[in-house]
C-alpha cells in the first residue's frame, strides 16, 4: 500500500513542476508586477558627508544606508563608514538628468513610449544598462512576434502539407520511412540550426537578394520555421491519423478518389487538430531561444521590416541574465519577460491540449 501511495505521489511531479515553474519564475518578477520597487533616484536625499556619521542615531543611519535590521547589526563601524563613502560617490555618479527621477520599472515605462532626454519624440527603448535603465518591452515583443510570424508562414503550410501526404496519401511502406525521417529534423539541436543559419544561410540569402543586413528578422524566422516543423508536423499527423479509417473507406466506397477523400472528409474532420498544431507551433516559436539569439542580429529596434535585425524576448533573457545582479531591477525585468513567456506558452499549450483532447473524444465517439 505504501508503495502504491508513493507511486501516486510521484506521479504528481509533473503538476508540481508546472506549478513551481510559475511560482519561482513569477516570484522573482513579482516586485515589478506589483509595482513595489522603484529605480528612481531619490532627489531629496543629499548624501551625508562621512564626517557626520556620529551625528546620526543608529536608526537614522540604518534607514539612510537602506539596511535591514539584521544586516545593520552584523556590520562593524568600518563597514558602515565604507558604505557612507559609497553613498557620496554614488551621488556624484548619479545623473542629474531629469530621466534619473523616473521610475523606469513602472508599468507605464515598460509598455508605453516616453520622451527621454536627447530624443525628439516619445520612443520605445530597451537599453537596460548604464546610468538610466530603459526597459520598454514593446520592441522585444514585436521582435518575437515578427520572427514567429515568418516562421509560421513558412512552417505551417509545409508541415501541414507533409502531414496530409504522409498520413493520407503515401503508401504504408513509404510512410514507415518518411515519418521517422521528418521527425529526425527534431534531432538537430537549435544551437546547430542557429549557427547554420547565421553562417551559411545568412551569406547565401544576402548575396542572393543583396540584403543590407546579413542577420535579420526574416533569416531568424526562417531558421525558427525549420526548427518548428517537427512539432507542427507530428501533431497534425497525429490528428489526421486519429480520424477513423471508416471515414475514408466510406468516401472511397462512394466513388471518391484518395485525394478527395483526404481533402473533403479527413482534413475537415481533423481541422481542430490542425489548429492545435498551429497553436502549439506558435508556442514553440515564441519560446525558442538559441536560433534567434544567434541569427537575428539582436538589435532592439521597433520596426515592421522583416529585413532588419531584431531582438526577441528569449534572446534578451539569454544574452542578459548572466550579467545581472541577483535581485536587481534588470534581473527582475528579465524574470518579468520569462513570466510573460511562460503565461503565453501555458495558454497556447492549454488551448492546444483541450482542442486535441476534444477532437479525439469526438472522433472516437466518446463525447
Amino acid at each position: 500500500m505504501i508503495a502504491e501511495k508513493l507511486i501516486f505521489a510521484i506521479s504528481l511531479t509533473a503538476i508540481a513542476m508546472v506549478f513551481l515553474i510559475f511560482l519561482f519564475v513569477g516570484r522573482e518578477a513579482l516586485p515589478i508586477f506589483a509595482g513595489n520597487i522603484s529605480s528612481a533616484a531619490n532627489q531629496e536625499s543629499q548624501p551625508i558627508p562621512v564626517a557626520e556619521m556620529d551625528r546620526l542615531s543608529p536608526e537614522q543611519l540604518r534607514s539612510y544606508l537602506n539596511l535591514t535590521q539584521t544586516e545593520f547589526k552584523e556590520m562593524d563601524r568600518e563597514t558602515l563608514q565604507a558604505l557612507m563613502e559609497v553613498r557620496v560617490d554614488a551621488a556624484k555618479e548619479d545623473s542629474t538628468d531629469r530621466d534619473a527621477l523616473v521610475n523606469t520599472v513602472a508599468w507605464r515605462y515598460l509598455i508605453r513610449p516616453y520622451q527621454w532626454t536627447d530624443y525628439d519624440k516619445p520612443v520605445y527603448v530597451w537599453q537596460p544598462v548604464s546610468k538610466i535603465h530603459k526597459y520598454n518591452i514593446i520592441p522585444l515583443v514585436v521582435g518575437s512576434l515578427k520572427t514567429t510570424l515568418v516562421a509560421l508562414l513558412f512552417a505551417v503550410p509545409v508541415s501541414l502539407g507533409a502531414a496530409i501526404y504522409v498520413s493520407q496519401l503515401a503508401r504504408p511502406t513509404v510512410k514507415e520511412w518518411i515519418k521517422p525521417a521528418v521527425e529526425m529534423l527534431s534531432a538537430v539541436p537549435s544551437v546547430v540550426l542557429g549557427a547554420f543559419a547565421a553562417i551559411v544561410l545568412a551569406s547565401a540569402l544576402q548575396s542572393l537578394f543583396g540584403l543590407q543586413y546579413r542577420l535579420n528578422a526574416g533569416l531568424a524566422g526562417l531558421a525558427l520555421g525549420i526548427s518548428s516543423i517537427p512539432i507542427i508536423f507530428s501533431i497534425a499527423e497525429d490528428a489526421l491519423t486519429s480520424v477513423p479509417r471508416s471515414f475514408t473507406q466510406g468516401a472511397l466506397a462512394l466513388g471518391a478518389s484518395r485525394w478527395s477523400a483526404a481533402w473533403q472528409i479527413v482534413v475537415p474532420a481533423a481541422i481542430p487538430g490542425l489548429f492545435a498544431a498551429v497553436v502549439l507551433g506558435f508556442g514553440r516559436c515564441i519560446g525558442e531561444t538559441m536560433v534567434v539569439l544567434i541569427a537575428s542580429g539582436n538589435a532592439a529596434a521597433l520596426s515592421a521590416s522583416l529585413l532588419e535585425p531584431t531582438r526577441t524576448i528569449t534572446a534578451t533573457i539569454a544574452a542578459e541574465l548572466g550579467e545581472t545582479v541577483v535581485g536587481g531591477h534588470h534581473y527582475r525585468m528579465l524574470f518579468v519577460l520569462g513570466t510573460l513567456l511562460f503565461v503565453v506558452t501555458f495558454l497556447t499549450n492549454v488551448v492546444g491540449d483541450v482542442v486535441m483532447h476534444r477532437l479525439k473524444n469526438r472522433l472516437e465517439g466518446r463525447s
Partner: protein
Amino acid sequence: MKLHRSIAVAGSLAALLLAATTSLAGNVTIKGSDTMVILGQKWAEVFMQKNPDTKIQVTGGGSGTGFAALQNKQTDIANASRKIRAKEREQCIKAFGKNPREYPVALDGLSLYVHANNPVSTLCIEEIRDIFTGKITNWKQVGGLDTPIILYSRENSSGTYEFFKEHVLLGRDFAAKAQTLAGTAQVLQQVAQDPNGIGYGGAAYGSGAKHLKVSAAKGGEGIEPTEETVVSQKYPIWRHLFVYLNPELEKGEVKVFLDWIRSEEGQKVVKDVGYYPLPANLRRK
C-alpha cells in the same frame, strides 16, 4: 534480474560521482569581462605551467557579471574592463564588509573598425558619437560614399559596451538599429564583410578591417591607435583593464597569482595577447 543489475550499475556510478564531491584546494576562479577572457586564459595557462598545483578557472560573461559574481561570492577575482560603480561597490561592501580591492593590470585602446575599402580614414569623437546614436546615418555626412551606415555594437553585458556608451556617447543611447554581437571578434568579422559597417573594439584585436584614426575635436589631428599613442594617452579612446577582489581573499594562491600578473612576466603575457602593458610607475596602485 536484468532490471536489478542495471539499477545496481546506475547506483554505483552515482555513488562514484557523489564520492567525488570533495572540495578542491588550490583553486582560483576568475570571472568577468569578455574582453579579458583570452588574457585571463593565457595568464592561467602560463601561470599553471609554473605552478602545477594551482588550478585556475576562467569564465567570461562581461564585467557586470564579474562584479555580480564577486558580490555573490561566486568568484575569487573579477575581471573588469571598466571601473566598478558605486552601486556595485555598495553591494560588495554589504556582502563582505569591505571595499573590494582594485588593481589596474593593463591598458587598452578602443578602435573604430570599418571595412578595408571605406574611404573614410579619420573621425572625430563627436562624429563617432553622432554615428552611434543614429544622428548621422549616411557615410556621405562624414566625407564617405553615399551609402547608409550599418552599426555593429556589443551585447549590453560587455564592459566595452558600457565604456563606449559612457565615454564616447556620453551616456546617450545607442541607435536602436545597432546590431549587438556577443564578442569583439564577431564585430570585427561582420565589419570586415560589410562595406558600410562600423564597429568598435580592442585596438589590438586582429586584422581584416581598417582601424580609423581618431581626433579629439573636429579638424584636429587624427591619431592612430598604437601602443605608443595609447600608453602615452595621446589616442583619445583608451581605458584601464582591472581586476577586483575581496581583500580578505588576497592570500595564498590568489595573492601569488595577483603579484605574478603584475610582474614583468605577467605583463609580457598582456603584450602577447594584444593589450598594452602598464608602464612600471602605474603598476603599484
